[in-house]
């Protein structure tokens, strides 16, 4: 059966069916750092779900929340947080998701985070402009005291405010653009206060980028761009509708979404190895498509 648009329900089923691969502690003495990024992205999805009434009683919210909570309080993860300053922002993003579903002792956590903020290099380390927005989003979400510039000021420093013709934009540029929009709009929960002309340019760039990545079959970016359009409340374009139909058509019966066509895992892998490769390829598109489906 062909679905017109991607289904959040089926995407969530697939994600929950692969929770073991999100777990950085699964059967290992040391933390698997490669799994921290997927886990943090899963936490962002959890935050989005927690803000939608219809998902609040969903069994999968507590299943995902349990995994994040279990890893969050482990001694290894605490050590990781203290010893690696680049662990701060992802840690806060995971903490926010747990706060949203009341699965964390927030008072203790907030004291710890505020102390780390004061006594570490978190506020001084160099970041790309979209990462500054990410930091601000995390600090605000955790209710921490900070003196970061406003969203508008930070947004003006990102590629979203300095657009070049899209044919020259790299995949990295496209990712930084979508992430700037995600964090500046709190994943579609806050309106973006920008001038009409700038909004128009941004909308044109998003449409052009959708054209490009629909052409090359980079489904991960197609999902990101679709969600970015949704965050900007700019859904009225043919590219948006085409992207929706494409992702809906390509969603697997198990709920997974394809990653970039060019990076498709080789079918010569077998068993658990194939499952892991397929997970690495699919999980990000699946999470972003689910975020889109929850927000739209």
């Amino acid at each position, binding site marked *: 059966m062909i679905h017109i648009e991607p289904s959040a329900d089926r995407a969530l089923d697939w994600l929950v069916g692969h929770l073991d691969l999100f777990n950085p502690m699964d059967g290992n003495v040391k933390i698997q750092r490669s799994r921290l990024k997927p886990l943090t992205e899963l936490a962002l999805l959890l935050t989005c779900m927690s803000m939608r009434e219809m998902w609040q009683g969903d069994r999968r919210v507590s299943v995902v929340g349990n995994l994040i909570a279990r890893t969050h309080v482990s001694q290894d993860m605490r050590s990781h947080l203290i010893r690696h300053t680049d662990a701060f922002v992802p840690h806060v993003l995971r903490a926010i998701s747990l706060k949203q579903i009341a699965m964390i002792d927030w008072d203790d956590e907030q004291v710890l985070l505020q102390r780390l903020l004061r006594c570490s290099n978190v506020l001084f380390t160099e970041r790309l402009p979209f990462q500054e927005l990410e930091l601000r989003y995390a600090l605000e979400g955790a209710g921490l005291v900070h003196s970061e510039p406003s969203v508008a000021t930070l947004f003006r420093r990102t590629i979203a405010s300095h657009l070049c013709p899209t*044919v020259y934009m790299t995949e990295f540029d496209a990712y930084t653009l979508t992430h700037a929009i995600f964090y500046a709009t709190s994943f579609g929960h806050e309106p973006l206060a920008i001038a009409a002309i700038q909004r128009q340019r941004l909308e044109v760039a998003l449409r052009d980028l959708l*054209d490009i990545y629909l052409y090359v079959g980079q489904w991960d970016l197609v999902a990101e761009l679709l969600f970015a359009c949704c965050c900007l409340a700019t859904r009225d374009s043919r590219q948006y509708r085409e992207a929706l139909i494409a992702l809906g058509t390509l969603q697997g019966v198990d709920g997974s979404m394809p990653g970039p066509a060019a990076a498709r895992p080789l079918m010569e892998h077998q068993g658990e190895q194939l499952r892991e490769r397929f997970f690495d390829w699919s999980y990000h598109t699946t999470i972003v498509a689910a975020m889109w489906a929850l927000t739209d």
Partner: protein
Amino acid sequence: MPDSEARRAIGQAREWIRCLSVKHVMELAPADAMLALIGLWLGDITYVHKDSESLGVVANRLQQLLDDSDQDTVGSGHYDTRLLLISDSILRCCGQASARIEVLARELAADFEDLDSTPDDYLGESFLLSKRGLLPRHVTMPVDVSLEWKIGLGGISAQRTHVQNLCRQIEGATGFGTFPIETSRLGRVELEFRLSQVLLGSLHSYDIELAAAVLRSLVSIQARDSRSVREALRFLLLQQWRDGRFGFLSTEVRLLAGERSPVEPVARRVYLQSTVACMWAIAMMLRDDWIVHAVRLFTGTEQAA
């Protein structure tokens, strides 16, 4: 973008083809000679400094190559029939009609007359044959844009052949951009949308030849002033080397050449293809020049410089 910049770029490209043709005339394969001939002609119609000498040199070589090849090779689909017919038109304006192509053209015209309708991707040939008086009239038909694009894992780029066929249909349906396309307003909007999408995607994928073909199609359907066309033109102009050829394609050349040695014939073919494709697209942007000279060429009234 000012016209002078486009003319200068075509002039430089013409110079590259001229040098290559003079230096390697005896090494040119028939397909290379056809491309060189078309490139030199494109240079002559758009660039102020014309010279008929190099056009004559390449025309002689092509004539010789065609005379040396047997009729079966010329007529067996070994070469792009469109390029053959256009090359023949240029040969004619140099006073060197090719008997081999003449036979092919007559056979093709007879085949078309036996058919109820011309196949969509042979509309260009049908147009060229009708202009030569070998077909009673050129029947254009609306380009089928209602055709749904298949959604697949590889994206639209997986349907590259389909895009090329669409461009060929548009060439035929507009007489290579010399008259407007017969389609509804909605059909034209649909075409412009789909072609602009492919244009951006192919430029991003550095598929210069396809981008140039799509650009020509967009100009042919009167979308010359659209934002994507303007951006694409600027992008193509940036792909020119100082020596005049277009495309930064050393990786493609290496891949195509493989273990073969020498690499030069492969490089010559690759750069001739990309350079002529870009020249053609840029020349079509200089609308008046293109229409005047293309009409003269196809009707046999064009004269070499």
